[in-house]
């Protein structure tokens, strides 16, 4: 009898493992999921050390004397990527704006006055900004400064005909997108809608990064995590950096580590390498973040674990079928092939015309084109959408238009059971 009970226990346990464990998946799946803020499994001790170093830099709050500014919105990466832990997203209080001026040819340019290295302005008296990001803080005005207001609290420039809002997205698993091959992304491209399904996703090639396929940012406007970091450091924090230049002949800071990593599944491979130095005019010597620290910072984000799936109940399984039937999965494709195996990010890394947008052109992405936002970790991220305009998943779905109009309509026509299952599925991501 006792044996029977023990067997029963074992059976129940096995049944559970079979039914519920997310690890009971296909052999080809990449082993990259983990708790929020943790590294992907399998990093070497040396790599883990760099990952932790990167985390510290991610958390580091810069003071003005350390280089924050002259203009900034945040003083640390974790200011905006904090929820539920560093590397995550942010609530609306960290939203920021992009101010651009539409050109006659339909492109947009930043609405702030241009500034270049050759024409270094006096940061204490001029409002000269490197990007379209509207900064909230600037150098303290003084009685002697005639434009104190402009430098302390940058106003939205009068030339801006488009002011777009952004809500910080989570970074969990984002490094895995660099391990998706160009071929894998291009295989789903259909810029002219040749198959006539109403969906015409295309890649966004980045002219400033050797025409590599952009895969980071709401408009796929960046091809490498390094560029993504260096841009945000400059535009949001006023922290300057030099290129890591890891493909140049110049030895990177840690050749041993690089050799080790290149021999493993977490190769420190970048899609493209931004080469320009970034400088600013706040009186602190550039670069304000050294290359070793930037390298760790990039490494941290390249190796943040992908969000793990929640409990997969029968309702969730039914919801996943609804997700496909409605047409969501046409763009939010469940899996992508990476060099490590399949990842389940629910994106095609293409940009799509959403029929509505923010008017900001980024490289080849037009005002209405947005990257299919990855859905993994979805439940950790209200508010939703690029501008944080949706309180709920439902509101976010209803905001889909253009290429996604059919899927949205199908969603609206779902019966209550299907709708509930679909939401349960989305909440399990």
């Amino acid at each position, binding site marked *: 009898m006792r044996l029977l009970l023990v067997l029963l226990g074992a059976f129940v346990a096995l049944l559970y493992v079979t039914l519920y464990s997310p690890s009971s998946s296909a052999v080809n799946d990449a082993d990259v999921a983990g708790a929020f803020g943790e590294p992907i499994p399998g990093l070497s001790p040396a790599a883990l050390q760099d990952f932790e170093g990167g985390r510290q830099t991610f958390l580091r709050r810069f003071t003005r004397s350390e280089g924050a500014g002259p203009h900034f919105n945040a003083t640390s990466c974790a200011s905006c990527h904090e929820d539920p832990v560093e590397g995550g997203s942010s609530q609306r209080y960290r939203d920021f704006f992009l101010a651009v001026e539409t050109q006659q040819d339909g492109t947009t340019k930043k609405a702030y006055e241009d500034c270049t290295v050759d024409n270094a302005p006096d940061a204490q008296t001029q409002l000269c900004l490197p990007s379209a990001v509207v900064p909230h803080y600037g150098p303290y005005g003084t009685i002697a400064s005639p434009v104190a207001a402009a430098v302390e609290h940058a106003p939205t420039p009068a030339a801006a005909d488009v002011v777009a809002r952004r809500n910080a997205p989570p970074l969990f698993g984002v490094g895995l997108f660099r391990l998706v091959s160009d071929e894998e992304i291009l295989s789903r491209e259909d810029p002219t809608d040749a198959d006539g399904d109403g969906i015409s996703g295309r890649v966004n090639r980045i002219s400033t990064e050797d025409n590599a396929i952009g895969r980071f940012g709401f408009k796929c406007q960046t091809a490498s995590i390094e560029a993504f970091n260096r841009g945000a450091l400059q535009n949001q924090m006023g922290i300057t950096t030099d290129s890591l230049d890891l493909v140049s002949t110049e030895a990177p800071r840690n050749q041993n580590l690089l050799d080790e990593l290149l021999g493993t599944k977490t190769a420190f491979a970048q899609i493209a390498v931004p080469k320009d130095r970034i400088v600013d005019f706040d009186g602190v010597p550039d670069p304000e973040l050294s290359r070793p620290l930037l390298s760790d910072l990039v490494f941290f984000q390249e190796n943040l674990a992908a969000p793990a799936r*929640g409990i997969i109940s029968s309702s969730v399984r039914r919801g996943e079928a609804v997700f496909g039937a409605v047409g969501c999965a046409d763009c939010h494709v469940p899996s992508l092939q990476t060099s490590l195996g399949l990842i389940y990010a629910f994106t095609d890394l293409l940009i799509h015309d959403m029929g509505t947008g923010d008017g900001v052109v980024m490289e080849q992405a037009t005002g209405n084109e947005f990257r299919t936002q990855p859905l993994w970790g979805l439940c950790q991220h209200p508010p939703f959408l690029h501008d944080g305009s949706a309180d709920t998943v439902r509101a976010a779905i209803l905001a889909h238009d253009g290429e996604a109009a059919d899927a949205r309509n199908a969603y609206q026509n779902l019966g209550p059971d299907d709708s509930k299952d679909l939401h349960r599925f989305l909440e399990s991501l």
Partner: protein
Amino acid sequence: MTRTSTSSWKTTIHLSNLLLLLGIAVLLYHLPFGPARGREQFDEGGPEFIRGDGNNDDRVDISDAIYCLNYVFARGDKPSCLAAADTDDNGEIELTDAIALLGYLFQGSSQPPPPFPVAGPDPTPDLGCREPSLPPLPEVGSLGGPDRVLTEAEALSWRRGRELFDRPTMLSEGLGPIFNGDSCRGCHLDPVLGGAGGLDLNVVRFAYVDGMGTVSQLEGGPAASRLSILSVPRDEMHIDANVVETRQPPTCLGLGLVDRIPDAVLLQNADPDDDDQDGISGRARMVNGRVGRFGHKSGVPTLHDFAADASFNELGLTVDPVHSLFAGGSDTDAVADPELSDQEFLDLAFFLAHLAPPPRVLPPDPVSLDRINQGEVLFGNIGCDSCHLPVLDGADGPVRVYSDFLLHAVANPGRHNVNEPGVDPEEFRTAPFLGLRDTAPYLHDGSAETLDQAILLGHYGEAETARNAYAALSLLEKSQIQAFLLSL
């Protein structure tokens, strides 16, 4: 013989069942779960639930027990419907909920209390189904904890207030139309919830200064908002603004102590005409019949006013004006007013009123301690304590906050500052030292990265004598004063 055998058999079953149960629990605990997550969106239906359905999948089964164990032991996320996860309906999510559920499922124990097995509303509304989990009560007197022992009802109010302080406000709950933050925590988070905010969370005040140096307020001023809801533009500075003053979010830790200082105690230190001719002429700012004490210019008289003012001006949340003359009773977003219910506002105010002042932590080694003590003596000797009064008589005994809460003309003459009605640009409240060690950068605008800078950059006018005395100290003496201040 037979009887013995039967009895033994029953015992065996009982033990086996328990072992089985324990085995399953241990096994499940060690399984490689990802964090089980999920926030109910409540797109369809109201807060109905099935007791025991912790993972909210409309079925009561072993996965609910796992979800609960995962939450309690393995950093799993909060159940979206707490009342459902509270299988034994005792108001707490804990191990016993999983045990009770496993007992029901596998041992034939009694079924969970209603609503069960059919979904329904909670007959014993305690944890709620919509509400996120209430945080546990921190230790009395700890950093971010309550300031005294609370009764059960008070503790519940405090925890609800803390949850409200922490929770991001959604558009559907009334955020905006213009706002700087979407939660109190958004700006008051250093080093714990309820604390101060960093340089990148300053709020903005603007004004106009003419050629004669006269500062005046502009239309729409003095505050500019950082953000707005999408249907309205953010509230930018007036185009003619040429004076900007950013203001740091101050700590909320210990504000209840400040609130409970009687007016008479503050007024006895006022000397508006400098009758004693010591060069220091602090004056009380009377607001609605009480001495103002909150805000960098003492513009807010009570803690209720502080909570109502910040709810409206920083988050855009309306409160019934019955609670405070500072409450915004209505706004222009689409959400019905008041957006904070009476209960919510009172919970928030109670939490703030009983948020402990940061405990002082002194180093154990005699050398450091001696440096701190020397610094404290110097602090008095050079006259810092003329305004930064170490102790005031509060309603509950002595209050050690190093402030007189009076206005003094101290601003740096090289910097712009805005005026407020009846308060000159150069006048500021003596900043209290509540957890000073955790509130860098310093001064109202965060322009001082170090205490040395704070003393030298922010103390002119009435404070200039003390400032110059500090500047004349040796490096050792300065470091002693700084060590003392950093011990607060």
